């Protein structure tokens, strides 16, 4: 039933180019037949901007679904638990970005709190709100991670060995580096502790890379070489840690009830992140007070990044929560 005239020259290569809009899993499942349809369509309509836009839109939707950020599985084989795991992986990545950038802003506030009498100021309100939200976020993250780790340990397979080893190594290095460089925390010796110093120092050290000093190489050069190296290496370690964790969640066999729990925990975390963001937003909007609480361009950028991460995390949590599982769903 294809056009009798046959496809025009170059139709196959144009169809192949259009197919690249779609993720690999989709191409593996539908690529051959979709290419045939595109070639037939090109034969009928050699030039069509509407077709290009339609394919691009469909490809982006498929990529969002593949990333767990849109409803529906990217291919039927990924319906159910696999689709929910993809969404939870995306949620973990967005949550991690939010945590790192949030920790950088929060560190600035807690250091200012250590040294300054700020009672009654927007900075004091922001510090109190963000401190409570940060502790709630960390507690939620551990509550969500623990049952997943237990489920993975109970059902450990060969395909989990590499991501588990990478996660363990990167976490160990991150923890050791955070503890070591936390010794340089500027809040030490301050007189107004709001949160445990060890926690604040660790968060400060692990988020040192989120810094305006990158824009001032001269000032950065005055830092100890080891600290600059840590500023460069820690975001890579964080990225490796998060990607390894996300890979574990994608590959692990997790029961539907646990996935549903994780989706609810994700939505709760989004609510706490929103509170944290409001606290930071209030502080940045007022421009901060005094030198210790001064809010700069990097803080405005940080709030924007956190807002984007929160929006994506909420979308992922809602997508994970909307996944329906067959009654006899297995964990494949």
């Amino acid at each position, binding site marked *: *039933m*294809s056009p009798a005239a046959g496809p025009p020259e170059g139709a196959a290569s144009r169809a192949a180019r259009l197919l690249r809009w779609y993720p690999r899993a*989709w191409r593996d499942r*539908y690529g*051959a*037949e*979709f*290419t*045939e*349809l*595109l070639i*037939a*369509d090109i034969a009928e309509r050699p030039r069509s901007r*509407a*077709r290009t836009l*339609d*394919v*691009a*839109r*469909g*490809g982006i*939707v*498929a990529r969002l679904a593949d990333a767990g950020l849109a409803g*529906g*599985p*990217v*291919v*039927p084989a990924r*319906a159910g638990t696999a689709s929910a795991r993809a969404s939870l992986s995306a949620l973990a990545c967005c949550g991690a970005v939010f945590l790192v950038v949030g920790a950088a802003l929060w560190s600035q506030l807690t250091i200012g709190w250590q040294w300054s009498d700020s009672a009654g100021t927007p900075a004091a309100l922001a510090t109190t709100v963000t401190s409570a939200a940060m502790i709630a976020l960390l507690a939620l993250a551990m509550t969500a991670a623990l049952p997943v780790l237990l489920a993975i340990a109970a059902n450990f397979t060969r395909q989990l060995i590499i991501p588990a080893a990478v996660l363990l190594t990167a976490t160990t290095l991150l923890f050791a580096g955070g503890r070591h460089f936390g010794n340089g925390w500027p809040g030490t010796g301050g007189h107004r502790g709001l949160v445990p110093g060890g926690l604040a120092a660790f968060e400060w050290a692990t988020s040192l890379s989120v810094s305006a000093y990158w824009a001032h190489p001269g000032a950065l050069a005055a830092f100890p070489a080891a600290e600059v190296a840590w500023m460069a290496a820690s975001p890579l370690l964080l990225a490796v840690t998060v990607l390894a964790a996300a890979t574990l969640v994608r590959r692990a066999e997790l029961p539907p009830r646990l996935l549903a729990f994780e989706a609810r925990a994700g939505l709760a975390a989004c609510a706490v992140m929103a509170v944290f963001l409001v606290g930071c937003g209030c502080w940045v909007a007022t421009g901060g007070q005094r030198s210790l609480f001064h809010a700069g361009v990097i803080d405005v950028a940080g709030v924007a990044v956190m807002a984007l991460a929160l929006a994506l995390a909420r979308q992922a949590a809602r997508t994970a929560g909307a996944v329906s599982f067959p009654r006899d769903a297995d964990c494949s």
Partner: protein
Amino acid sequence: MPKGNRSDPGESKGLTGFGRYAGPATLILSSLADGAKHGYALTKDVESFSGVRLSPGTLYEALARLESQGLIEALDTDDRRRPYQLTAAGAGALKAHLDAQRRVAEVGLRRLAGNWGTA
């Protein structure tokens, strides 16, 4: 006779949950109601009975969702053009959806006739 048997056609809730994909899904299911078709044949058939030309991206977006929901299924073939057929669940969903559409159409036509003299 289609081989799909995922649910009783009489129990279907139609295409609720398809949102903005309900339109293409209805056209595709209606086309498959008289037999299995591959992508290009589906496009031409839908265009012939509805005047709507489904673009390739829209068509396969809807096909993937319908297949995930078990309303259609792909047939084995050596050809690169894979045909799809309706399942029993798909037939039930289409019937429920069209019944609901018919009720809406009947109400609209009745009110038009009563107030505008056209039907």
